[in-house]
């Protein structure tokens, strides 16, 4: 026959075990949230760094034809990556936005993705369109005479 104390003991052990596993579950969720935040932050920072690097291309002097080939490759890479970044953002947004999670992180990521895309477009426009335009070339010489 089970004594009262044994029954209480079993109940206590069960309760402690439950609360411990509950705590573990909460910790696990928090770890996953932190992991996601870190992942988003890393991508955002990398994209912002990429945008700044892309802008630097326009400050290089004496670009040769072979340099332009390299730049074309960078632009193609940027455009292809943009498709992946956008898809990743949309998937994450669909997953977490309805739950109200990672609102700020996702907003910063979206801004960084847009900036990156604009940088790719700007570099392409400046190197391959604007600088080939005769009107612009004349204007540049006049500006240098100031």
């Amino acid at each position, binding site marked *: 026959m089970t004594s009262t104390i044994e029954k209480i003991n079993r109940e206590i052990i069960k309760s402690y075990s439950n609360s411990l596993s509950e705590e573990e579950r909460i910790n696990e969720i928090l770890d996953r949230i932190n992991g996601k935040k870190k992942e988003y932050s890393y991508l955002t920072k990398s994209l912002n760094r990429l945008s700044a690097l892309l802008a630097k291309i326009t400050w290089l002097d004496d670009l040769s034809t072979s340099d332009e080939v390299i730049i074309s490759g960078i632009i193609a890479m940027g455009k292809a990556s943009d498709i992946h970044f956008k898809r990743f953002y949309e998937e994450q947004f669909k997953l977490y936005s309805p739950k109200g999670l990672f609102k700020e992180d996702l907003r910063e990521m979206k801004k960084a993705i847009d*900036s990156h895309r604009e940088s790719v477009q700007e570099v392409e426009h*400046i190197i391959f369109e604007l600088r080939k335009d005769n009107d612009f070339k004349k204007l540049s010489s006049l500006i240098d005479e100031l």
Partner: protein
Amino acid sequence: MQFFFQKSFIAVLKKLLKKNSYKDCEKAIIENIFKLKVDDLFAHCVSYRLNPNAKNPIAKLRVGDGQGKSSSYRVYLIAVAVKNKYYFGYMYPKQGVYGQDALKSTEESKIIKTLLKDIKNEAVIEVCLNEAQDKICFTSNKKEVFE
């Protein structure tokens, strides 16, 4: 460093500041441009040089809102640097009510042409920061440009 605005630049910025989504645009320009007390301003903010191998760079600068704001915008400014003088000729936002597509080569050339004309005719207005460093003022009378 000396800063000069074209009249049309002031007009565009005034129009933007009236809209809630761009209300801190002046602040963003101050933080991202005016407060960069360095000789080579263009090297210290996100900027693209339009003219290659140039003595006087024509640059497109990107200025955005700070982190964590509910509004989200980026504005592009076109500026010419002649020695330590920075002339601002045009700005346009990428998002928001006045958001627009990137400029075409012909549009950019037109903007630079009018800026060049105004620089030559000394029709640009010199501006600076007020004492508190939180507003842009006319250098001549210290009145706030966007009051």
